[in-house]
């Protein structure tokens, strides 16, 4: 299905994009709408817990020792009032996105949205905006459904897999989903929402997937934070009436085409980009020598 069709249908039926997503899923899965929203609500709860967990213990590190503690650094600067003036929403979104991604790296519980590697962007931006606008949970549930709908269209027309399309397919898609949800929570029309998604996808188009030592840590954790900033910028533009000159569905097709053009070395194989730097390679070689508990047993 096309985003333009979905937005037009939502407008003519007088529903939000999120409600449209629930209607479609209800028909497809053959279950009542309440079952769908209950499941989304339970995911939102896990997302909220992940934000909180990620800020709880600044000393917690991932199994590799490569991730942890950065969400707390940004949160502390925010608490001390040291962030750039008027930048609270962005700083909070950055901190929350890092928090969720660090929880993921530390084998905590997260919701893949759309993937585990990009799991910080949607909850990070959503809960930051919730606090800024004092939104009810139900607004976030509806926005999460709208975000999901954008992801569904990208999955159908392009890909959500870093191995297939690079990081633009993971963090880029997550930013597009988040931008759509943020725009809906900001009072935007379905048309505004799909343009926000397109603007975010354009902003991150071509982003490669180059994880150091093959782990979902460097640069994934921090790319979640920078992608959240793109999502917020895109929502601000769309809510101001800015439009993507290239229609959203064409942007998705372009992303798919770009993904196919990205060399294999930059699609999750850890053979190029940051993974192939001197430091990246030294981490990878060091990492291979780390012994797990079970090796001693076996």
């Amino acid at each position, binding site marked *: *299905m096309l985003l333009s069709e979905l937005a037009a249908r939502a407008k003519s039926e007088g529903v939000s994009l999120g409600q449209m*997503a*629930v209607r*479609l*899923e209800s028909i*497809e*899965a053959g279950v009542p709408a309440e079952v*769908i929203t209950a*499941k*989304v609500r*339970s*995911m939102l709860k*896990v997302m909220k817990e992940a934000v909180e967990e990620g800020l709880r213990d600044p000393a917690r590190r*991932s*199994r*590799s020792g490569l991730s942890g503690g950065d969400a707390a650094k940004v949160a502390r600067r925010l608490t001390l009032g040291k962030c750039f003036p008027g930048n609270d929403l962005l700083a909070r979104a950055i901190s929350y996105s890092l928090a969720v991604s660090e*929880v*993921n*790296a*530390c*084998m*905590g*519980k*997260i*919701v*893949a*949205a*759309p*993937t*585990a*590697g990009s*799991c910080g962007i949607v909850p990070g931006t959503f809960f930051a905006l919730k606090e800024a606008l004092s939104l009810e949970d139900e607004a976030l549930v509806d926005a*999460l*459904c709208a*975000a*999901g*709908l954008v*992801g*569904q*269209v990208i*999955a*159908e027309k392009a890909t*959500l*897999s870093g*191995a297939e399309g690079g990081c633009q397919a993971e963090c880029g898609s997550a930013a597009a*989903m988040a931008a759509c949800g943020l725009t809906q929570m900001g009072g935007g029309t379905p048309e505004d929402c799909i343009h926000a998604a397109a603007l975010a996808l354009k902003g991150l188009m071509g982003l490669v997937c180059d994880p150091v*030592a*093959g*782990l*979902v*840590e460097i640069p994934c954790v921090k790319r979640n934070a920078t992608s959240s900033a793109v999502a917020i910028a895109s929502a601000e533009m769309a809510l101001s009436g800015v439009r993507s000159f290239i229609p959203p569905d064409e942007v998705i097709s372009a992303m798919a085409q770009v993904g196919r053009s990205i060399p294999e070395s930059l699609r999750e194989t850890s053979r190029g980009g940051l993974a192939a730097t001197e430091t990246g390679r030294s981490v990878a070689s060091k*990492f291979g020598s*780390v012994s*797990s*508990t*079970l*090796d001693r*047993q*076996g």
Partner: protein
Amino acid sequence: MPGLFDVLGPVMIGPSSSHTAGAARLGKLARILLGEPPRAATITLHGSFAATYKGHGTDLALVGGLLGFSTDDERIREAFEHARRQGLGVTIRTGDLGNVHPNTVRFDLVGANGKTLSMAGSSIGGGKVEVFEIEGLPVSISGERPTLVASYPDRPGVIAAITAVLARERINIATMRVTRSGKGKTAIAVLETDQDIPEKVLDEVRAIPGMDDTKVLRPE
């Protein structure tokens, strides 16, 4: 178009849907196919699983799955400790399993009562998995639908007997595949169904004369 929950979710223990969530699912499928709690497991990791398992916690997830943990079970982080407490001995090794998906694992299991299982499967992305070999025989099991896995000595009439039970219980077969090691030798039938297969129905299938072993995999 993929469903809403193909994009949102799974709810999982990080850090990777393919290297952690999919690994836990494969472990759990192996436990169910073994049919009893495992007491010894040799786990062979191939390709990307072999290269990155320590950092992704793939080993923890596989062992967690063998202990019956779901993808979102936080006990996965301490899976080795739980394995020790439950008397499961684990050997992890890496190896070349041939021309298979990069994220592939083989389990060689011994159960508490002496049952054994050899199973190979791949984590094919987004937490989805495919079991492609049981006891050396080619199969294709995703675990996303209720799945009946029956093994028996190859002879005429067994498939008819199984499908008769399902038909009587109004359980619709979505897909079906039968494979065997040779004429008259061990055969495995895998039937995916649209409705759940209750224990009562499973008992009826188990009661078919000559049936060795029958399991049901249920989606979570």
